[in-house]
């Protein structure tokens, strides 16, 4: 339906003013990342790439990058794959799954701060639930410092992350599996295919679109995970469990190095764009059809 320009603007302007503000903010952050801005009040002194150099030469930044890589591998892949397999298995048992699905969904409506509080207690070294259970089961040799141990703490947080987000992968995969044409499934069943064969040869190829979306959004989650880190360890011990989104906050709002903090934000933006541009183009193709 063609409309007059005035009508079009009347409707588009409110929403797109806000979208415009967001793009303006992106540009603003990019500019501030080249400024020598330290302290509360703005300092517009051009510093070139100094802030980036400060980051790239600091041990702390690379620990953050390493932790983000750990999240990328040990959070994204298990959440995505468990979500896919669980969605399929639950679809095979429709009666049980009506009762079970809400159990995996409810972490989605719980604040990550609550999730962090619960799991922080689980993994607490002295009074933690896990250590107490292990003692109760006479498995004392498995007891350890958990979130107090710099080598293990990141993995504890990833467990909390998976716990919170599995339901998201499950929701999307379930929706995608229901769209698989039933005649494909029926034909395979008539041919005597086992549930495993149906899963690998029909379901997985047919739900490729959900896989792209789920994995991309999980990658983006690793670039914004802040709450769990703040609540569970505050990035510690030392900075052993920090990730880039947390570092950005610390540097900017605690150390007031606004220029360097903006540089971290720009790095997060660049990594996000690598995932987001193909994802958005691909989603658009589906929306516009």
């Amino acid at each position, binding site marked *: 339906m063609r409309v007059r320009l005035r009508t079009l603007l009347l409707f588009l302007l409110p929403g797109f003013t*806000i979208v415009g503000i967001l793009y303006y903010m992106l540009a603003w952050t990019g500019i501030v990342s080249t400024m020598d801005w330290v302290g509360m009040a703005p300092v517009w002194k051009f510093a070139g790439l100094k802030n980036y150099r400060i980051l790239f030469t600091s041990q702390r930044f690379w620990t953050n990058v390493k932790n983000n890589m750990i999240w990328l591998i040990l959070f994204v892949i298990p959440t995505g794959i468990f979500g896919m397999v669980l969605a399929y298995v639950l679809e095979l048992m429709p009666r049980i799954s009506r009762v079970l699905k809400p159990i995996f969904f409810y972490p989605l409506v719980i*604040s990550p701060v609550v999730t962090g509080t619960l799991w922080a207690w689980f993994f607490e070294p002295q009074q933690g639930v896990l250590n107490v259970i292990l003692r109760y089961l006479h498995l004392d040799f498995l007891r350890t410092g958990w979130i107090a141990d710099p080598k293990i703490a990141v993995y504890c947080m990833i467990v909390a992350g998976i*716990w919170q987000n599995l339901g998201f992968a499950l929701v999307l995969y379930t929706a995608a599996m229901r769209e698989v044409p039933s005649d494909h499934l029926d034909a395979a069943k008539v041919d005597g295919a086992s549930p495993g064969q149906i899963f690998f040869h029909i379901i997985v190829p047919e739900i490729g679109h959900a896989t792209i979306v789920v994995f991309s*959004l999980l990658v983006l989650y690793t670039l914004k995970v802040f*709450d769990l880190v*703040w609540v569970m360890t505050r990035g510690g011990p030392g900075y052993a469990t920090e990730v880039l989104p947390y570092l950005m906050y610390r540097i900017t709002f605690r150390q007031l190095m606004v220029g360097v903090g903006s540089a971290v934000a720009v790095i997060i933006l660049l990594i*996000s764009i690598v995932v987001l541009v193909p*994802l958005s*183009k691909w989603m658009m193709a589906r929306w516009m059809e």
Partner: protein
Amino acid sequence: MRGFGKVIALIVILFLIVVWILPVYVMFSASLKPLSEINSGNYLRPPIELRTENWVMAFNTLKNSLKNSFLVSIPATLITVFIGSWSGYALAIFKFRWKSRLFFSIAIVTFLPYQIFLIPLTRLIVDMGLFNTFAGMILAYVILNTPMAILTTSLFFQTIPKELYEASSLDGCTPTRFYFSILLPISLAGITSAAVLTFTNVWNEFIIALSLSRDPTTRLAIPTLAGLKGSYVAQWNMLMAGAAIVSIPGILVLIFLGRFFIKGLTAGALKE
């Protein structure tokens, strides 16, 4: 599925269910126990001595911040969904050049981490004199959630037959009247999905709420709970009661509006 495979699947599912229920079971049972019971290592058994006072005390500590959270998340949700559906309507129904570019530009900002906007957003709120105020937080949440609302509502509106709009405009119905008296009533499901998604997002959000208010009188529930973790050191019963209380709105949303929540989640990501 039958036989051996089914047994293995059931065992794995059973294990997952235990892991998914245990933290919340421990949360509820600990929130009702006296501290002495927790200190003696009784985590898994239900409370021997019921302490409902924990909930009363935690509620009194959180009362003001819970009220603040409602005063911020409800207006933020209403404004976001109104602006989002207003512009989403034009995007879904009208034909114009650059439409796909606009769609693309929204998709990008919808999924970007909040951290990228955090510094300029804080500056904006401070410069407007809205730091520590509800208005400041509402404005910030509206800015951050509108792209998602445009996206979800316009995808819902796309499913409405174009003929409906064409027929009503031939009858002399203006685009504004069409929005209020036809589009909104028939897309109530889509609007509700966008609203439910925005509300849970805002209610549970942490980093923005933490950065935009340092004043205890305007602080929201989630940052207040996060602060309690520092001050209630080792008082796990109180902390768990607080965690349970702030989770109630989200849980109620899932129970009563779960269908809309799930629809909202899948709508943006997968067009059905």
